[in-house]
């Protein structure tokens, strides 16, 4: 009831008098969120690509040197295997470098990779700081905060997403679990853990970068060698997040993708449920 009164006021305020039928849209993403979201794309890409070039210089994971090739890096071995088994790659110039040539800036560019990594890292920290301060002041963090029921609801959402392709193939109806919040439980868990992973990446990064001056931080993560493992797996977390994130956004449709660019969504009915549920 309260809502409809508010709406009428807005209708009067935003509609030019000659317009009878306006489009109902809901404000979805603040400009700050949209900017920091898209800035993360080149920054994280730069961090991961340069990070893997740094990893190449001294791999975190290694095995006993192979008696024939002298290789101790499992990623180099995977490259050798790919070049030996994938058709068309038999004449690849340097098989041990295949993986690094595809997931990093390439081998042997440590100096440039380090400079790029610092540049992106400072931009990442700045971007993260602006995002956190903006969400704290604007209150946007509330929609990301996990609820007590989220574990159960997130599982429900997970099985829903898993089931969608099969339901589509078999032309069965497959109902979307109901929710009346900006994000569903699975999104909340994912979107809340990303800033935390970002924060931990920054902490482990500093601990690796300054193990002497920040030796206490290095100790928190279990010493110099262990924190490199932490930093590596936090990078993997971002990759594991981004893949389903992009797939689900594309599957959800243009409105969802557009809302991260323009800020509004025409799916106003989801917010109506907000009041109608009561």
């Amino acid at each position, binding site marked *: *009831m309260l*809502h409809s009164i508010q*709406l009428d006021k*807005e*209708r009067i305020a*935003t*509609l*030019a008098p000659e*317009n009878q*039928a*306006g*489009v*109902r*849209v*809901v*404000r*979805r993403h603040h400009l700050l969120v949209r900017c920091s979201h*898209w800035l993360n794309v*080149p920054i994280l890409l*730069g961090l991961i690509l340069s990070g893997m070039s740094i990893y190449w*210089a*001294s791999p*975190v994971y290694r095995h006993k040197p192979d008696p024939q090739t002298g290789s101790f890096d499992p990623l180099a071995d995977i490259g050798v295997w790919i070049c030996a088994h994938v058709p068309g790659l038999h004449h690849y110039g340097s098989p041990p470098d295949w993986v690094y*040539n595809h997931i990093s*800036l*390439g081998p*042997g*560019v*440590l*100096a*440039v*990779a*380090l*400079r*790029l990594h*610092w*540049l992106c890292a*400072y931009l990442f920290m700045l971007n993260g700081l602006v995002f956190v301060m903006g969400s704290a002041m604007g209150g946007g963090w*509330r*929609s990301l905060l996990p609820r007590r029921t989220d574990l159960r609801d997130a599982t429900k959402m997970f099985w829903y997403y898993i089931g969608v392709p099969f339901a589509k193939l078999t032309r069965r109806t497959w109902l979307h679990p109901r929710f*009346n*919040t*900006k994000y569903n439980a699975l999104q909340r868990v994912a979107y809340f853990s990303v800033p935390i992973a970002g924060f931990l990446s920054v902490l482990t990064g500093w601990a*690796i*970068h*300054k*193990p*002497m*001056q920040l030796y206490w931080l290095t100790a928190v993560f279990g010493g*110099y*060698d262990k924190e*490199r493992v932490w930093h590596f797996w936090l990078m993997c977390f971002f990759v594991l997040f981004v893949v389903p994130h992009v797939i689900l956004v594309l599957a959800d449709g243009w409105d969802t993708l557009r809302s991260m*660019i*323009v800020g*509004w969504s025409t799916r106003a009915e989801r*917010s109506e449920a*907000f*009041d109608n*549920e*009561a």
Partner: protein
Amino acid sequence: MKLEDEHSALEADNPSSTKSVSPRKSASFFEERPPQVMEVAPQLLRHWTRRDLLLFGMGAIAAAAGGGSLLPQATLKRLGIIDGNKNWPTKEWLLNRALRVDDDVAEALYSRNRLVPTYTKSQITPLKNNYNGATPDPSYIPEWRLTLDGLASGLSVSLNIRNLLASFRLHEQITRLVCVEGWSAIAWWAGLRFDDLLSAYPPMSQAKWARIESSVNVGPWGNPDPYFVSLDLSTARHPQTLLATHLNGESLTVEHGAPLRLHVPVKLGLKNIKAITRITYTKDEPQDCWAKRGYSHYDGI
């Protein structure tokens, strides 16, 4: 959620209700705010969409071009974007700027009073010979001398290893050496403090830097490429900055820079120069062979 909305509905009906005020207030701090619905004229919405998508597209193109131009030459060549050697002055400027910011942060973090962690003998790990196949011929060792330049006295001092061992107290420490590549090693070092050498042979008053050089077997038959690093005197005066003579309880071997090398645990391994032959104190920052190859100048860790 539902409960909260009931509360708010209740409140709207009866604003003076005091019962629901306190629980609602405490809950609402964490509670999601209802989204703002608005009604917009279709042509205005189309205008907004066009404007924002255009801005986004331009931003994406700018980011791809700007970010792409920062990539290493080898990467761009491999991707077939450039051929031959091409470098942009802005690229170098931006990357060097980031490196300078990082060096300034490192310098701000450094304190002469903050000691680095030390370890026990059971934690010692193997230290690899990082000459990478270019270990010098040990024939230089009997003739070895250390030359000091840029001193307050204006003279040049030449010392042999017996002079050094006889006139300075040796200090021991088990510390970690961290390489820029990402590996590290814990070793038991012994040597004289750089600070003690600075007190015994004070540098000229304006000196802020030391250029430390290793020129052994230089010449057509030996090492064609002397190794040299820059070290700020503030770091040189750190109590754990050693001019090491011993490793793991024994005199340094040629692999580890006999007879005298720098062990500066607050810097990356590449500053820990082996087989030092000359130290020159300077007012301005001297050249550093790794900084010339695109690594940082300061290298504080």
